[in-house]
C-alpha cells in the first residue's frame, strides 16, 4: 500500500448536500472533478493520491540504483521498463490529484520539503540484485493488494488512474518473482542471497499496509466515502495468504517462526511487524530517508534549467508564429 495512515479531514458542509453526496457514493455513482464534494473528501483525496504519487516517484530510486548493474542485458531492459512505468504511474496520479485543485508543482514542493510523505518501504536500501527481485515480488505484490480494490474507488479520475496502473503492475510483480526464482534455483550462494533478501523485505512489506485501523475513525470515514475499500488488516492477511505459498515454491523460508496455517480461520497466522520501527521510519529515521529526499531535491534543482529553457523556447516559438500571421 503506497498511502499509509492517511488522516481523513473533518467536513463542515451543508448536511443536506452531504446526504445527497453520500447517497451518490452508496449508489456507486462516480464523483467527477466538477461535481460538488465535501471539503473533507477533497482534502483527504489530495493527501492520499499525492502520497501515492510521491511513492511511485521515490520508488524509482531503490530500483534505479541497479539499472547499470543488472546481471544481463535483458534484465537491464526489463528493469528500465519497470522504472519508466513507475514514472508514468506517478504522472497518472499527479494528474488525478490536479483535478482536485492542487498543482503538480505544489505537490512536488510538499514532497521535497517533507510536508507530504511517501511509503515507508522506500526508505530501505536495495543492497544487491536479489533485493530487486524481492522488491518486485513483495513490494509490488503488496501494492497490488491495495490497488486492485481501489479501481472501484468513488472518485472518477482516481479510479481511472488505478485501472491503468493495475494493468501495468502485474508485469512488475511477475518480473520480480521471475528474477528471484532464478536466484532461488541457482547456486547455493545465489539461493542464500534470495533468502537474505526475503528476510530483510518481509516485515517492511507487511508494514506497507499500515498499522491496524479497525478502530480508526479516519479509516471509517474514508471507507464510507469509498476512497478506502478494505481495512489494513484485511489487506495484510490477503497478502500473507497469497505470498507464503509463493515462497514455499521457491524453497525459501518466511522469516517468522510463528507463521502457521490456521485451518479454522482458513488463513495463515503470522507475527506483526515491529511497529516502533515503522513509526521511526516514517518520522524520518529509516536507513535511507535522507538519501531519498536529497536525491529528489537534487533532481528537481538540477532540472530547473531544462524546465525553464523549454518554456522559454516554447514562448519564443509562439511569439514568432504570431508575428508571422
Amino acid at each position, binding site marked *: 500500500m503506497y498511502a499509509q495512515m492517511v488522516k481523513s479531514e473533518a467536513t463542515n458542509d451543508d448536511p443536506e448536500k452531504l446526504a445527497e453526496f453520500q447517497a451518490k457514493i452508496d449508489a456507486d455513482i462516480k464523483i467527477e472533478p466538477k461535481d460538488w464534494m465535501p471539503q473533507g473528501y477533497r482534502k483527504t483525496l489530495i493527501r492520499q493520491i499525492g502520497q501515492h504519487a510521491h511513492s511511485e516517484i521515490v520508488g524509482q530510486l531503490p530500483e534505479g540504483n541497479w539499472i547499470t548493474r543488472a546481471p544481463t542485458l535483458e534484465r537491464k531492459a526489463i528493469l528500465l521498463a519497470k522504472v*519508466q512505468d513507475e514514472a508514468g504511474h506517478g504522472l497518472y496520479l499527479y494528474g488525478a490529484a*490536479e483535478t482536485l485543485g492542487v498543482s*503538480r*508543482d505544489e505537490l512536488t514542493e510538499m514532497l521535497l520539503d517533507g510536508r507530504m510523505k511517501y511509503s515507508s518501504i522506500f526508505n530501505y536500501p536495495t543492497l544487491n540484485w536479489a533485493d530487486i527481485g524481492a522488491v518486485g515480488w513483495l513490494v509490488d505484490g503488496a501494492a497490488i493488494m491495495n490497488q486492485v480494490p481501489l479501481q472501484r474507488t468513488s472518485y472518477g479520475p482516481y479510479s*481511472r488512474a488505478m485501472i491503468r496502473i493495475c494493468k501495468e503492475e502485474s508485469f512488475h510483480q511477475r518480473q520480480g518473482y521471475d528474477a528471484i526464482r532464478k536466484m532461488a534455483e541457482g547456486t547455493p550462494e545465489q539461493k542464500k542471497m534470495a533468502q537474505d533478501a526475503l528476510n530483510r523485505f518481509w516485515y517492511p512489506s507487511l508494514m506497507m499496509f499500515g498499522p491496524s485501523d479497525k478502530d480508526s475513525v479516519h479509516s471509517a470515514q474514508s471507507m464510507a466515502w469509498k476512497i478506502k475499500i478494505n481495512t489494513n488488516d484485511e489487506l495484510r492477511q490477503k497478502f500473507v495468504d497469497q505470498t507464503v505459498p509463493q515462497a514455499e515454491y521457491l524453497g525459501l523460508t518466511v522469516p517468522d517462526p510463528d507463521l502457521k496455517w490456521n485451518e479454522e480461520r482458513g488463513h495463515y497466522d503470522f507475527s506483526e511487524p515491529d511497529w516502533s520501527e515503522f513509526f521511526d521510519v516514517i518520522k524520518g529515521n529509516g536507513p535511507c530517508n535522507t538519501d531519498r529526499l536529497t536525491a529528489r531535491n537534487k533532481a528537481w534543482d538540477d532540472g530547473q534549467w531544462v*524546465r525553464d529553457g*523549454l*518554456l522559454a*523556447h516554447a514562448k519564443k516559438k509562439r511569439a514568432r508564429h504570431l508575428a508571422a500571421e
Partner: protein
Amino acid sequence: MKNEWPLWEIFIRGQHGMSHRHVGSLHAPDAEMAIKNARDVYTRRNEGVSIWVVEANNISASSPSDKGPLYEPSESKVYRHPTFFDIPDEVGAM
C-alpha cells in the same frame, strides 16, 4: 509556481477505424513536447496509432448542475428509438 508547464489533455486512437479517446493528461511546454511525452506515457504497450493533444484551458465543458435541463428532455422521447414501433411479423426484418 508561475513557471509551471501548461496542462494538456491527451487523446489516443487505439486502432485504425476507431475514434480518438481521452486517456489522461500531462504537462509540457508546447504541443510538440506534449505529443512526445504522450507517446512515452500513454503508448508504451501498443495502445495507439495516433495522438491528439489539446491544451486543457482550451476545453469548455458543460456544468454538472445543468444535467437536468440538458439531458432530461430526451428521456421522454422514446419514439426516437426504433424499438418504439411495432412492425408486423409478416413484413419481415426492417
